[in-house]
């Protein structure tokens, strides 16, 4: 029998709530974390709204030393380390002077320390390379976040960063799952983070994929599955989960949030309609079907789908793919929701924050509402029953949630969580 893998700790830094308690409350209330971002306006962005978690200077000092904060300017690492340490503490694991060879981390990101890199480039071009000091490399290397986390917690197993665009967080969970199942680690702290700000978001604004129609009404801007969806709203933050072998969790008498049944990652190869930015639907369907098969469940066992659903024209394509892969439609289709309606698209952090939301729903027994979806797109409601797109919270005992993420490069990931 294969090693079973469970979740024993959660941490989150989201635009609508920092810490699991605040985040859970925000999920229940359908609280938006999207606000007007002055810098985007000043720099002439079409989209002038975004999601940035609120972290005060005092709050930073609960996690980072003064020395670590000297010359620190990497919001992704900040969010990632806070979420990771919260998840570790939530799992009641010790932070000691000793190294723990049975615990590792796979903590993903898209880019690291974009603003730090900008500072460095200005100094360099000004012929002041020496003045970069010692802080640039650790904050701008892609694996900066896992390096910070590994050091803060004394992790002695694999310490690495994965990167697969907006699939990153979901992929990290499956990578950690595989490692535990292979017997190579007892615990893997998995998750992902994303920087905030204009230097990361500018490229998306230029591609005209961001919503520019709600600048006066930020909280209404992110509208997955809605007829008036007008592009995604950029977000940022981090999500973290402690994955652990069931044996280790039981031995420690740890609180178990849920079980990770498994999943699948694949790619559409940028063939058959797939491109750098658009998915190959056949591959998406295969990813979902394989995830269901790998987990030895049936499509109808899925209570809730936490979709990728970014609020672009691709939302309908995604629902078509779910429907086709699961062979379910109308009222047979599972409940479906998108956290992006509240926090926007947190890019590399999206998968992990959304997985944390999925696990919270399983543990507490509720389905969070889709906000800004009062006008469901006709194509969608003709394929699946509108009652499956909750606009108000549903209190309900849940057994299985499927979470999928899709990313640039035509990459897909689908993970399945089960109540323990």
């Amino acid at each position, binding site marked *: 029998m294969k090693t079973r893998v469970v979740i024993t700790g959660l941490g989150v830094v989201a635009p609508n709530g920092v810490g699991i308690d605040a985040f859970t409350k925000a999920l229940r209330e359908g609280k938006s974390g999207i606000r007007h971002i002055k810098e985007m306006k000043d720099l002439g962005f079409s989209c002038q709204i975004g999601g940035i978690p609120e972290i005060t200077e005092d709050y930073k000092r609960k996690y980072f030393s*003064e*020395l670590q904060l*000297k*010359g620190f300017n990497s919001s992704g690492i900040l969010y990632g380390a806070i979420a990771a340490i919260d998840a570790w503490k939530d799992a009641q694991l010790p932070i000691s002077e000793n190294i723990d060879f049975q615990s590792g981390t796979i903590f993903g990101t898209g880019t690291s320390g974009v603003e730090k890199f900008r500072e460095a480039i200005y100094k360099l071009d000004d012929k002041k390379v*020496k*003045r970069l*000091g*010692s*802080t640039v490399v650790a904050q701008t290397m892609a694996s900066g976040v896992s390096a910070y986390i590994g050091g803060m917690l004394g992790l002695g197993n694999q310490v690495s960063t994965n990167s697969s665009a907006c699939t990153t967080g979901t992929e990290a969970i499956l990578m950690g799952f595989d490692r535990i199942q292979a017997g190579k680690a007892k615990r893997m702290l998995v998750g992902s983070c994303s920087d905030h700000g204009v230097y990361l978001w500018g490229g998306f604004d230029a591609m005209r994929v961001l919503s520019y129609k709600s600048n006066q009404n930020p909280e209404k801007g992110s509208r997955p599955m809605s007829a008036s969806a007008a592009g995604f709203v950029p977000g940022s933050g981090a999500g973290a989960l402690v994955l652990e072998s069931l044996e280790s969790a039981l031995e420690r008498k740890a609180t178990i949030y849920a079980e990770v049944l498994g999943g699948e990652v694949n790619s559409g190869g940028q063939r058959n309609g797939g491109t750098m930015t658009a998915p190959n639907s056949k591959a998406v369907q295969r990813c979902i079907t394989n995830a269901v098969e790998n987990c030895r469940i049936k499509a109808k066992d899925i209570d809730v789908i936490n979709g990728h659903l970014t609020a672009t024209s691709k939302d309908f394509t995604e629902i078509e793919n779910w429907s086709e892969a699961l062979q379910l439609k109308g009222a047979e289709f599972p409940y479906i929701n998108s956290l992006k309606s509240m926090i926007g698209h947190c890019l590399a952090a999206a998968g992990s924050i959304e997985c944390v939301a999925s696990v919270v729903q399983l543990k507490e027994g509720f389905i969070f509402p889709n906000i800004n979806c009062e006008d469901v797109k006709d194509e969608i409601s003709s394929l699946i029953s509108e009652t499956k797109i909750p606009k108000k919270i549903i209190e309900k005992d849940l057994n299985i949630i499927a979470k999928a993420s899709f990313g640039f490069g035509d990459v897909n990931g689908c993970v399945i969580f089960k109540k323990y």
Partner: protein
Amino acid sequence: MREKTEMIAELKELVKPYIQDQEAFDNLNEDTDFINDLKINSANLVDVILDIEEKFDLEIDNESMDKMLNVKAAMEVINTKISEK
């Protein structure tokens, strides 16, 4: 030339954010070694030197930088650079 005690006090303030050994820091004197006594991370040593450059408005060349491993050597380099100005 600056008063030695005054300069030690100034250096002490500059290294404060980087030290990992409080006792050695409390007893900081001319013979204190930045890495062995104060346990400053070797990567942070370049930051200490950048802070010195800023504080004393100096430019310290690579060779001089290599010598600045303890308080005494650092003071010598600073004094030399000030006198060259």
